[in-house]
């Protein structure tokens, strides 16, 4: 049935790369230029960086933009209106507001910059070391960070001021140390998560030194989040610093935005508009920094425009032959006609991933839906349940479930079908149980909501279900949380939940793929028995032709969002008509001969 793996044909693999054009994408332009382009085409990123650049320019080159000294006071001009080269008028001591604004920005922005620099210098290296090496350094620095974070920055700064004096720059260095944990935690978390990544293990196996691994692999990963965090921390530092100055804590006569706000506040009754300019400067600068951080996040952390389905969405090839189930009448239990599923992508465009599928499942029949990843088989199954992931929708066709149309139904109507007409067994047992609830809760909740059973009745029924799925100690499992049971047990629990309200159709999406092969055999036996006892119809989504042979009456082979071939299991597995099906069968290793015994290399040649 299948050809052996061919050790004697060295040319074969080398000349047959997989043809998966959908994954290769266009030839990649340089990453950097792509990032720059994304940055330039994002109005928010461009706008906020332009505003920020303007503020910085005005502040740095303050003498070029104002002819007046910020400290020259003339009480005759106090509260004076704009005019005569005094763009924004005078403050309560008769000083020029515009020049105070520009010079004040120097202190405010410079201080924030210093704080961020100190925080980076302290937080990033310590985070790298703690995350990468772990151990005592990690424990010690975590303890220290918790200590620092337990202190409100404002209180510490006030206390510092009492000790170290009123120098703004000293206060900003202290502030930098106080906010360093923001970087430390970020970097440490990213690095610690990464330390377990296979590519770091791989780098170690390739003989890279730790310093090189950190430089090449680790820094690349934390670069973007650190830049983003830097913008946020700068905004926060500006706010805190202005707050200190507002309290009159900063150094006396230096013009700063905080001090200007303080002055405005004391005159709030007489000249409420004094607050406008320093408030605007401060608000604008902080807001721009946060907006810039938000847009940097979008630009730098771009994960590509994969649809919500991840690898599920693929563009289809040429039109496939007509699907076989379309002829004849529709089955009574499940009948799918011309089903198309479309996803709306992040950029607003849409992509069809299932292109007109026809399927029928009769009562008591097991239909295998077979295909490789990206063939659309799972999307088809979700459509039957009316539970497509976000962004996905049935864009055409009809799904009749026990005579009721699923497509276009209200959620309430679908809810009535789910549980007792159609039920679902997922692939990953662990991620499909809510970790916050016990196994008992999982089983009793639908019984009480759907069937209206009392608490005691639901409990009895649930325990009975656990016995039916051959769980050794039902009472104990009933009380357990999901993380306390094994994957095989969890899958049995999910099967028990699926059959709890006596469904007519079971949609099982790769129900044994995540399990060990010996557990798979047990779960297959369980599914087989429950199906026979209850006479359920089953739509079994799988990539494993052995599972198909074990359970299914009929098979539909799917590829690129279309049904390629449908027939009885016997016929499809022994006499496939389509090349694609034949290719799938050829890849099965069942009858591959074992490799010949080893010969020393010299002898073999």
């Amino acid at each position, binding site marked *: 049935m299948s050809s052996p793996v061919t050790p004697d044909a060295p040319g074969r693999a080398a000349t047959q790369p997989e043809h998966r054009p959908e994954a290769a994408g266009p030839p990649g332009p340089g990453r950097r230029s792509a990032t720059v382009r994304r940055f330039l085409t994002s109005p928010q990123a461009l706008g906020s960086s332009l505003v920020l650049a303007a503020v910085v320019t005005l502040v740095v080159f303050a003498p070029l933009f104002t002819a007046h000294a910020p400290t020259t006071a003339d009480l005759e001009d106090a509260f004076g209106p704009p005019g005569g080269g005094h763009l924004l008028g005078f403050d309560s001591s008769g000083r020029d507001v515009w020049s105070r604004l520009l010079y004040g920005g120097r202190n405010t922005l410079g201080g924030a910059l210093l704080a961020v620099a100190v925080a980076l210098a302290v937080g990033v290296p310590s985070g790298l070391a703690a995350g990468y090496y772990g151990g005592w350094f990690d424990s010690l620095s975590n303890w220290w960070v918790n200590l620092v974070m337990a202190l409100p920055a404002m209180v510490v700064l006030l*206390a510092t001021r009492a000790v170290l004096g009123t120098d703004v720059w000293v206060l900003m260095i202290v502030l930098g140390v106080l906010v360093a944990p923001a970087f430390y935690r970020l970097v440490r978390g990213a690095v610690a998560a990464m330390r377990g990544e296979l590519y770091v293990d791989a780098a170690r196996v390739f003989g890279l030194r730790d310093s090189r691994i950190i430089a090449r692999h680790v820094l690349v990963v934390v670069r973007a989040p650190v830049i983003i965090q830097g913008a946020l921390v700068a*905004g926060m530092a500006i706010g805190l610093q202005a707050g200190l100055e507002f309290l009159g804590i900063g150094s006396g006569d230096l013009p700063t935005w905080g001090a200007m706000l303080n002055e405005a506040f004391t005159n709030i009754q007489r000249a409420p508009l004094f607050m406008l300019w320093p408030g605007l400067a401060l608000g604008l600068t902080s807001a721009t920094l946060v907006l810039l951080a938000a847009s940097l996040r979008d630009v730098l952390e771009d994960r590509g425009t994969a649809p919500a389905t991840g690898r599920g969405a693929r563009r289809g090839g040429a039109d496939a032959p007509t699907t076989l189930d379309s002829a004849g009448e529709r089955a009574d239990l499940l009948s799918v006609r011309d089903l198309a599923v479309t996803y709306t992508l992040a950029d607003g465009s849409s992509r069809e991933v299932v292109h007109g599928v026809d399927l029928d499942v009769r009562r008591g029949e097991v239909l295998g839906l077979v295909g490789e990843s990206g063939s659309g088989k799972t999307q088809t199954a979700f459509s039957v349940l009316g539970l497509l992931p976000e962004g996905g929708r049935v864009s055409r066709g009809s799904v009749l479930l026990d005579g009721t149309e699923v497509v276009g139904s209200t959620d309430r109507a679908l809810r009535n079908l789910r549980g007792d007409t159609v039920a679902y067994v997922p692939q990953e047992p662990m991620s499909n149980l809510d970790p916050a609830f016990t196994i008992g809760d999982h089983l009793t909740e639908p019984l009480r909501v759907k069937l209206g059973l009392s608490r005691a009745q639901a409990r009895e029924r649930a325990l009975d279900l656990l016995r039916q799925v051959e769980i050794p100690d039902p009472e104990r499992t009933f009380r357990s*949380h999901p993380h306390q049971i094994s994957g095989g047990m969890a899958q049995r629990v999910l099967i028990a939940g699926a059959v709890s309200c006596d469904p007519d159709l079971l949609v099982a999406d790769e129900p044994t793929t995540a399990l060990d092969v010996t557990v798979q055999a047990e779960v297959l036996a369980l599914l087989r028995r429950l199906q026979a006892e209850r006479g359920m119809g089953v739509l079994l989504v799988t990539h494993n032709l052995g599972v198909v042979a074990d359970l299914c009456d009929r098979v539909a082979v799917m590829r690129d969002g279309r049904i390629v071939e449908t027939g009885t299991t016997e016929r499809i597995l022994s006499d496939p008509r389509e090349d694609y099906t034949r290719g799938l069968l050829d890849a099965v290793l069942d009858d591959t001969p074992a490799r010949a015994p080893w010969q020393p290399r010299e002898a073999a040649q």
Partner: protein
Amino acid sequence: MLSFILRRLGSGLLLLVVISALAYLLLSLPGTDVGRHVLGPAAPQQAVDAHNAELGLDRPVAVRYLDWLTSALQGDLGRSWFTSEDVSRALANRLPVTVSLMVGVTLVTAVVSFVLGVWAGVRRGAVDRVVQTVGVLGYALPGFLVTLVLVLVFAVRLGWFPAIGYTPLSQSPGGWLATVTLPVLSLSVAGIAGVSQQVRSSVIEVMGRDYVRTLRSRGLPASRVVFRHVLRSAATPGLTVLGMQFVGLLGGAVIVEQIFGLPGIGAMTVQYTTRGDIPVIMGVVMVTVVGVILTNLLVDVLVGWLNPKARVS
């Protein structure tokens, strides 16, 4: 659970001692001549020395600290160097103002953020965008600037609330409400921005989890899945952020109490730190750290109750 709480309280006590030692040593570093400071430049040197000796300042720092620590552990935080006020009593008088402010802010923040966050996370679309924009702005603007704007609009222009002053709850509940409304509102803005964003993104993340689909496939109503299952998992990060906001509130309270003239701990901090009054500053630091430790403990207990997996570690 009990042993967990006891362990946490124990490590909290350790933290308290370490922080107090660090703070005491740092504060004593510059060695200001307190006696001179209190008695003024004109006082004779003997009087100054005598005053310093009376305050115990002629002894080594370590001895002074141990002395302070032993009485502090018995609830006696000493007297102010400058006003001779009993520190414990002064703190006790001012604590209710600050605590009522912070509890009010936390309740407002929690309710509003969870409503907004869940709404935006479940509905998405336009609602989501509005909540996100408001969140970014609330986060971006420095807290005291928001406070100033609120004062300008609601107190100075519209005159709905008094701009300054405090009426104790026991005196007049209505008056109390009028005096704390603006402070609570202005302190809540940043918290609501941060916590609602966190709740929103965790709701979205949890809504995409596999078990949510499976629960819905059992025929449970979407609202039930959201409120019973999604919210329970999504609440954990929200609570953590709320706890961190609470710590930050102490800093915010400093400015807000100053602006509104509220007789709380924050205003006291500003007053006394400028003079380097170590007993008072130490008192404020101790109260703050105790508050932080208790808050973190409360958050951890809540998280453990919501999420059984976290209970293990």
